[in-house]
């Protein structure tokens, strides 16, 4: 107490000036949720490194193949299995195709699969989870039981079976992945909606007569967007990994199109004589997974501090 008194002067105890209300003015611009999250994310060096890596990779995937003097399927059979050189930065594969171009083109396929599969999972998962969480009761009970059963299945096994049924091919890969991966998203969205719908703003909206559909789409789901983004970011590397896995087993995309998984599988056959053929695509898969992992962790900390350390 004595300590506190020493810091106080007579001026601190004087009555506030009348009329002006100057003390009541907010001097700093108000911080929106997104600005706050961005500020927190920027402080996380690993997450920013991940974000920059992903942006560079995405740019390389989009523009790289067009800038390269070769195409991903152009074969120079007399130049097969060449080590990295000025003409072929990553060397060439067993059919004399430029590996740098193929890796960049593979980035296009792998990133596309990762993102599209996650979007399929997002579409199904968000609607499913939101409906279950919003209506609650028996509806929720039955819907979540179904999710529990699917969640108990060995994921990759069913992706493999679906690929056997659908046949190899790019869109089948992300359909199969999306068809299996949506359950995690559904669980997260449901949990979020369950807690959100008890909040005052929902009651206010209900009292004002907002119809349930609008309440769900305009008020509840937008408020759950933080965890949704985090889940999405962590889903992308998982889908990329699964696609590589499928391609390694020969169930992924069809030749001559190559994803990173195909490149690793092909390169492995020549590992003794031409190790660069497997090292470069393997490096790219690992870097991408690492980047998405760091970004996902950082986003989780930034968007949803409650989920930290989980």
């Amino acid at each position, binding site marked *: 107490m004595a300590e506190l008194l020493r810091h106080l002067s007579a001026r601190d105890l004087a009555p506030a000036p009348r009329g002006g209300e100057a003390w009541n003015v907010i001097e700093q611009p108000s911080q929106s949720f997104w600005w706050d999250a961005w500020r927190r994310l920027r402080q996380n060096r690993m997450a920013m490194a991940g974000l920059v890596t992903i942006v560079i990779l995405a740019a390389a995937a989009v523009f790289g193949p067009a800038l390269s003097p070769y195409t991903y399927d152009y074969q120079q059979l007399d130049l097969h299995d060449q080590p990295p050189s000025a003409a072929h930065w990553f060397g060439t594969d067993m059919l004399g195709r430029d590996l740098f171009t193929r890796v960049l083109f593979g980035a296009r396929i792998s990133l596309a699969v990762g993102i599209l599969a996650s979007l399929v999972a997002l579409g199904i998962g968000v609607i499913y989870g939101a409906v279950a969480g919003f209506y609650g009761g028996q509806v929720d009970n039955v819907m979540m039981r179904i999710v529990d059963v699917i969640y108990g299945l060995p994921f990759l*096994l069913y992706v493999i079976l679906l690929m056997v049924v659908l046949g190899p091919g790019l869109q089948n890969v992300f359909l199969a992945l999306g068809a299996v991966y949506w359950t995690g998203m559904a669980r997260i969205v449901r949990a979020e909606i369950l807690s959100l719908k008890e909040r005052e703003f929902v009651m206010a909206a209900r009292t004002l007569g907002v119809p349930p559909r609008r309440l769900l789409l305009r008020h509840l789901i937008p408020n759950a967007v933080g965890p949704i983004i985090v889940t999405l970011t962590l889903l992308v590397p998982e889908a990329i990994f699964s696609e590589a896995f499928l391609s390694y087993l020969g169930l992924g995309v069809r030749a001559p199109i190559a994803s990173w998984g195909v490149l690793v599988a092909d390169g492995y056959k020549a590992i003794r004589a031409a190790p660069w053929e497997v090292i470069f695509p393997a490096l790219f898969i*690992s870097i991408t997974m690492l980047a998405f992992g760091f970004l996902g962790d950082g986003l989780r900390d930034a968007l949803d501090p409650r989920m930290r350390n989980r």
Partner: protein
Amino acid sequence: MARYITGRLVSSLLTLWVIVTLTFVLMHAVPGGPFDTEKALPQAILDNLNKRYHLDWPLWRQYLYYLWNLAHFDFGPSFKHIGQSVNEIIAQGFRVSATLGGMAIAVALIGGVLAGVVAALRQGGWVDHVVMTFASVGLAVPSFVVATVLVYLLAYHLKVLPAGLWGTPAQAVMPVISLSLGPMAVIARYVRTSMVEVLRQDFITTARAKGLPRRTITYVHALKNAILPVITYMGPLTAGVLTGSFVIEQIFAIPGMGREFVLSITDRDYTAIMGTTVFYSVLLIVANLLVDLVYAWVDPRIRVAKGASD
């Protein structure tokens, strides 16, 4: 407790039924029959084959027949390996896969727990940073990339380990490392997080005040509580090692179930695909059930919470 166990058993059986039905439907949705060959078989032979494998029956009867046989642990004959039953194929492969998987799980558990504890004890120090960086990388690098790098370095470059096949301890080293590195990273992260939390609690301070040796406090008092999240991870861990073995057994030419599964897919051996899928699923369901029971037994709080929400 009894109610909880019955509840879990019923839902496990339900999951199993869904899996069997789903697999059956998927396999019958595959275009083309199992006896489609390059040369068309004479109709009489096809008829006989279909009769022999009950493919001339209506679908519902085939389904019931399959269920009936499954209830007797009979997976039926293989379509491609004439004279061999799927049971025999699974039995041959499972012994190898179980050894490989068991070793991988053991290595992942021991390595992960140790790394996590060490990191937690030196929280913020360089050991912690090294372990956590290693864990992030281990999480991002797919098992087949690890295997590829190991084969290149240890088998072709340094020539200290054999590049494949199965039987001797030396041949097991690289497959086990490739399979266990990812799970080990996850376990290390879990253990570190919960260990840091536990070490801050009052009973640890009390134990220290009572003058218990540091080692006892760490490995008996703290670890017992910090290891709980690892138990929940045992289910996904088993799943990861099982599916991981598809590719790893392929790379190292190990005659296990994973390779058998992949072969049966490329051979379009439908009964073998169905059999191995169901067998894998049963393994996983049993593993998940055991994990839940152990968890409920170790931590009574879960039992109460789950009983209430069910």
